[in-house]
């Protein structure tokens, strides 16, 4: 299968690979996917508690090139956004930006799930109620 140039670029030069302190209450961590499915994505956000702005984002992904590119791009988009704006990131925006073919849409869904899981982790650490997202069929 041929990958788009953008996928290849993110795969070759991934942005924001790394780890934030998951114990900190200013960090939200989302770990989604499963090794058996061939994709595991961990996405973390660092939030400025005063402003609600995401000041840093990191990821680590076990998966194909599209999964790596989806998570790399997601971290790029997260930085500088408020938590409320970040919730609105839609997987189809990732699909469009990376030109993902239909068989790779699940990679973008995983990235969106990871963002939401990270936000909920941050919210629960700070005594905020969990956001409820629609169940999706992957």
């Amino acid at each position: 299968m041929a990958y788009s140039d953008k996928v290849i670029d993110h795969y070759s030069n991934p942005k924001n690979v790394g780890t934030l302190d998951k114990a900190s209450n200013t960090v939200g961590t989302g770990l989604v996917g499963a090794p058996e499915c061939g994709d595991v994505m961990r996405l973390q956000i660092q939030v400025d508690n005063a402003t609600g702005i995401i000041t840093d984002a990191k990821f680590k992904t076990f998966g194909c090139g599209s999964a790596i590119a989806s998570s790399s791009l997601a971290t790029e988009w997260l930085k500088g956004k408020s938590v409320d704006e970040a919730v609105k990131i839609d997987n189809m925006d990732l699909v469009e930006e990376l030109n993902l073919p239909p068989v790779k849409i699940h990679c973008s869904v995983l990235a969106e799930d990871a963002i939401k899981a990270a936000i909920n982790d941050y919210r629960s650490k700070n005594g905020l109620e969990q956001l409820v997202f629609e169940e999706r069929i992957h």
Partner: protein
Amino acid sequence: MLKLPIYLDHNSTTPMDPRVLEAMIPYFTENFGNAASRNHSFGWHAEEAVDYAREQIAQLIGADPKEIIFTSGATEGNNLGIKGVYEMYASKGNHIITCTTEHKAVLDTCKHLEKLGAEVTYLEVQPDGLIDLKALEAAMRPTTILVAIMYANNEIGVIQPVKEISAIAKKHGALYFSDAVQAVGKIPVDVIADGIDIMSFTAHKMYGPKGVGALYVRRKNPRVKVTAQIDGGGHERGMRSGTLNVPGIVGFGKAAEIARLDMAGDTERISKLRDKLENALKVIDETYVNGNPAHRLPHVSNISFKYVEGEGLMMGFNKDIALSSGSACTSASLEPSYVLKALGLGDDLAHSSLRFGLGRYTTEEQIDYTITAVTDTVLKLREMSPLWEMFKEGIDIDAIQWAHH
């Protein structure tokens, strides 16, 4: 100067040997006759060429030329061999024994026959990929007409104990069919010594052309017959109708002759390169070689690089190196290789595997390049892998409740 890309997918197909192409060319233009045309010299020339190829191919596997039935390839051979026996020997029984790591052309043929009333036993393989002979013995029934176990596996290269398998089949009055597409031309195959009754193989896996294969059908001790699956002019002793692919057959014959003459030298050289590649990659932590290393084709190595995903791994070098992965991230089911799963590998290891298939034109320089490219990519992706980080922190990944999709 190293020329890229490097081809390391020889279990999938092989390039044609230039000597084969040279032998074929006249049979497209000057000697274009139909081998079944008995009344003129064009037909005679074609028939003569086919007969010669039949001898070359028979010689490679220790058969009589009359026992070679030309087909379009091994998929057709597997269909004809298995369905043909099922129909021909219906009065003797309806039970077939095969195993879970067979090629789809065998498994799906068996499934098709199940719908028509066949009973099929799918033997599981041991963790090293070999079948358990005791389990085979125990599966035999009075109604067993066929044992269909491959000679060597296409994904992991393990070579089944064919002599022992054929002896068990014979003892119970069943025929032994072998899909030998990966073995013929690569390792010595002798249908008499191996006790094989029916065997399929193909030209394009041994540096011959695509679109031509053969089914060996034993004529003595016992005399085996298969019911034709393609009806028509009664070619190939009535077992496979259709005008013979004369240039393809000529190429197949030449490829068989070269394989027979060059096998010892090729094997020595290629297995050394394979071992060099495997030993260098095994140095990487948490790397596992799949399949029994002592009973394996000389040119194949299947390795799992734990905590990195196969397709993502290939992306690191697939511009420059062509090989296959057991991962199936692109397939709708997202299911990894059923062969690796049949060995009892977890899905994670199956997703993390690469198959290296070396060949006649593989050079040491190509192997050195591959070692560096694969090692670099594995290390880079592990730095990016959350599973690797957890493993390094001593977290038991199997104990985590993953949200399954």
